[in-house]
């Protein structure tokens, strides 16, 4: 990169930072305070590691005229976001802008940077995610009671509460698993990116996130209720409940690895 190019890059970065400073404040506030998106902070070093892993594939190539298109589209979305008061559109417009800048300065050599940039999309607070809460809450409750019925342990369901052996367990909105969907999206996207195999298989793996999240949450609730039945309700809703995210992600990872094997995806010679 020449000195002139570096100066232009620096000026562009400053101007874009000026345009997006409110968006960045909003994102950081969400990552620091919103339990659904706290993984956003983790994605920054993870993105750095992904770039480092592919550092050999980053080079400075001549850009063509089309490489300016993402920047133009991103800034158009930015303007629309301002006019329509759509903060999510404003936040998402940052992605094509960053991709556009990378493509303009590095040409085809910017390819390894595009995935870490797109990964930020899984940490942008999207509207309507809360609408999944009730659906996941009901599905989780019904499925867990179904499992108990299958293994011969009678339970009764009243609304969002499951009554097992005289103890009532209320499936709170936070227990619907919705707060773990977005981190699981990030995790699956990273794994799908690192896997070797057909693009269709990797996209399909990524598309399975919501069923995997639902299954993992059902498993987590099932274990929680079993603990409650064996060791008492205090044990279930106390320490175990607080650290049951580990069970969720452990089960989710098992499922992801199982599907990766089914889709013949492997991580050989990737790193």
């Amino acid at each position, binding site marked *: 990169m020449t000195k002139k*190019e570096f100066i232009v890059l620096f000026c562009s970065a400053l*101007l874009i930072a000026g345009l997006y400073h409110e968006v960045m404040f909003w994102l950081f506030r969400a990552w620091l305070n919103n339990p659904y998106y706290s993984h956003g902070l983790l994605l920054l070093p993870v993105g750095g590691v992904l770039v480092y892993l592919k550092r050999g594939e980053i080079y400075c190539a001549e850009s063509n005229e089309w490489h300016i298109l993402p920047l133009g589209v991103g800034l158009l979305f930015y303007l629309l976001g301002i006019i329509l008061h759509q903060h999510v559109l404003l936040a998402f417009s940052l992605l094509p802008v960053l991709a556009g800048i990378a493509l303009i300065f590095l040409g085809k050599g910017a390819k390894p940077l595009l995935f870490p940039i797109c990964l930020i999309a899984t940490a942008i607070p*999207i509207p309507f995610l809360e609408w999944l809460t009730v659906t996941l809450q009901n599905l989780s409750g019904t499925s867990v009671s179904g499992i108990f019925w299958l293994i011969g342990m009678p339970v009764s369901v009243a609304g969002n509460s499951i009554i097992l052996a005289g103890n009532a367990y209320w499936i709170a909105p936070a227990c619907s698993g919705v707060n773990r969907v977005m981190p699981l999206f990030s995790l699956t996207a990273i794994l799908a990116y690192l896997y070797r195999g057909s693009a269709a298989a990797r996209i399909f793996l990524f598309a399975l996130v919501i069923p995997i999240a639902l299954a993992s949450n059902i498993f987590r609730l099932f274990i929680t209720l079993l603990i409650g039945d064996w060791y008492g309700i205090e044990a279930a809703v106390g320490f175990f409940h607080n650290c049951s995210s580990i069970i969720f992600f452990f089960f989710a990872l098992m499922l992801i690895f199982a599907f990766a094997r089914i889709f013949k995806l492997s991580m050989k010679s990737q790193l």
Partner: protein
Amino acid sequence: MKQTFRIIIGIIALVYVLTTLLSTPGMVSPGGVSLIDTQIQGSSGKEIFVRTKLDFAHPEQMEQFPRTIEEWHSTSYNWSRLKERLSADVLLSRAYRRHNFSAPAFFLIIQGTNMSSFHPPVVCYPALGYEIEEEGKVEVAIASDSWAEGPWRSEREGSFFKGKMSAKKLVVVKRRGDGEITERRAVLYYFVKDERMSMPREVTMVRLSALAPLNGSYQDTLELLRKLASDTFPAMFEERGEERTIAEKLVFEHGASGCLVIAMLVFVPVTFILLPYLRKKKNEEDVSFSRV
């Protein structure tokens, strides 16, 4: 300078100019704007711009919110469980009663910075086991308009308060295992959004709810809530009228000179982007002319 780099700087500068022209002074000011809307995301098109009389960020000041308003008198109620469920800061929770009406109307103000974890009633009630019976919007006439006759609101400013605001209506029921309704509630709610450059800083929800008859019409309950919404509004807000964008202000307040300023502001970055193309075209014309 390489043409691509010229385009980058030019486009970004053009976006700066357009963003400024399409923004209102409130949007770019450090304080931002406060508006009342029926939806938490984006704009419903029925939002009204307000000045908040209370500092919603200060619980001590919120405690000063009148306990007696018009014919209403209130008592505080416990909100700790609700606070936990909503992942938000509960600022005010009162049960208001009218002298001639024994049923209380629950008045709640909550604030949150995270809209994703801040469940609106339409999500919150079903998550708590309620069933939505009816959903819609209602107009609330703001009864006491003495505050709306202040000197800040003049005909020249074009910000006449219409005396009405929109609120979301929700009727929810809770059923027993056998399907029998055990509880029925009417709910009114609206959002107060603090924005800067179209980015939300804080969202405050004002929610009013009351128990409705288990069967039959809930109109009396709804009227009660509308009356409370109407009476509490002036204690919290002053209407400020929708601001014009900077471009509109330039055009309507400065006429031709305003248009000229806009044209100049847009012309500079556009020329910066197109100059090499124009030069190239001129050179080609010169070459073809000299050949002739």
